[in-house]
């Protein structure tokens, strides 16, 4: 096998532009969580290398990149089948600069549990040359809401120490935009087409993060790539807790949501501004806590924007803006308000 080399880009100050994450045996300590963007750009390199074949403007690599800035040391990444797995490891290429394992669509959480159990066993017999090795699992919404849910629920119940990051692009984008448990109501997909009979998907979105809260695991949070500081802090908290942690990250998909390639971050921001996707975290001690922009909206409700702001930039909701469908848009707004009001009632730091 020929020696693998990374592209060399001249850098005046800081780390090389691209690097593999190599930790010498006996490596001790913790990588710092850097929140200053310029220091971040000098000292941190993502766990994902360029040359992956995800679509232009996809938000999933942004989530992986931001999450990897918050890793605290040697980390093993487990991947469920999905866009991320398929596009980053096209044989014989791999985009991962960290150890990576993929098993099947339905058992990402079980594979993660096995990795974690092996780490524990090696540590017990003194064969692990590191203080801690973290397990981070990346799953798509199909592999989490639908197919991999019982594996995830089981792993959460057994209490394995891992962080599960769900990048939610709200349909089976990898196989051609089929509806999933994560698709919002009235969204167009190829298996819930908009026409005379139905106006897109007729069911609600499964509240996956609330379901994980019901498991009473140590840490649950929601995040978007647009609120990058918030996402990094949450990932670090999720890695630091003992036991399973779950992060639900919204990942706009330009192919499936039918928007321009440059709008992924803008749409994630609007999802939070319209309260379609509120940012919060939950721990057994503190209960629900709103964070970042959602906390600002709870304190000052005039910042909350109508759902049209979120809908107008996406082709999958195009039919909602037609004059004859005003009723549906109203229903969608009511659905979003219901979820938001419910969260406000439960959030400990929301003004009462």
């Amino acid at each position, binding site marked *: 096998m020929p020696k693998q080399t990374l592209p060399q*880009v001249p850098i005046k100050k800081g780390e090389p532009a691209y690097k593999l994450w190599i930790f010498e045996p006996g490596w001790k300590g913790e990588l710092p969580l850097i929140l200053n*963007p*310029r220091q971040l750009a000098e000292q941190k390199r993502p766990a994902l290398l360029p040359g992956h074949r995800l679509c232009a403007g996809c938000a999933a690599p*942004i989530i992986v990149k931001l999450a990897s800035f918050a890793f605290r040391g040697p980390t093993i990444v487990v991947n469920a089948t999905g866009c991320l797995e398929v596009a980053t490891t096209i044989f014989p290429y*791999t985009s991962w600069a960290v150890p990576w394992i993929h098993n099947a669509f339905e058992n990402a959480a079980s594979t993660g549990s096995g990795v974690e159990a092996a780490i524990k066993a090696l540590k017990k017999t003194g064969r692990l040359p590191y203080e801690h090795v973290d397990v981070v699992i990346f799953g798509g919404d199909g592999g989490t809401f639908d197919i991999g849910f019982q594996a995830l629920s089981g792993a959460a119940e057994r209490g394995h120490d891992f962080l599960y990051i769900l990048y939610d692009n709200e349909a089976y984008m990898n196989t051609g935009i089929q509806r999933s448990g994560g698709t919002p109501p009235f969204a167009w997909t190829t298996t819930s087409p908009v026409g005379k009979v139905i106006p897109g998907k007729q069911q609600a979105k499964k509240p996956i993060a609330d379901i994980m809260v019901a498991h009473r695991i140590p840490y649950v949070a929601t995040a978007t790539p647009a609120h990058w500081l918030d996402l990094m802090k949450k990932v670090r908290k999720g890695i630091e807790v003992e036991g399973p942690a779950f992060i639900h990250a919204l990942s706009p998909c330009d192919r499936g949501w039918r928007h321009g*390639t440059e709008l992924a971050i803008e749409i994630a921001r609007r999802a939070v501004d319209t309260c379609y996707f509120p940012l919060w975290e939950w721990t057994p001690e503190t209960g629900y806590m709103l964070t970042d922009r959602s906390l600002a909206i709870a304190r000052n409700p005039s910042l909350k924007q109508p759902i049209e702001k979120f809908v107008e930039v996406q082709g999958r909701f195009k039919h909602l803006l037609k004059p004859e469908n005003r009723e549906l848009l109203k229903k969608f707004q009511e659905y979003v308000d219901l979820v938001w009001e419910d969260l406000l009632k439960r959030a400990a730091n929301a003004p009462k």
Partner: protein
Amino acid sequence: MAELRGYKELPIGAVPFRLSTDYKTGDWRALRPVVDHNKCVKCMLCWIYCPDMAVIWDGEKITINYDYCKGCGLCAHECPVKAITMEPEPTE
């Protein structure tokens, strides 16, 4: 045809072994981002948001690695001072 191998001889799984940096995704691009260094305030948002790790910060200024940039335009859209513009790819 080669002789069929049993489960003991077969490898346990597939191992992707080449770095994807060998695969240049730059030819997917239709528009290319161009940085105006006079306008750039070095806020690093493009470096943080680039999905293809194509924005390089060398300690002094931002450059774009056109080997990997897929031309999505996210950096130009998110730039707070509009220092990045999307220009058509030069044709030879």
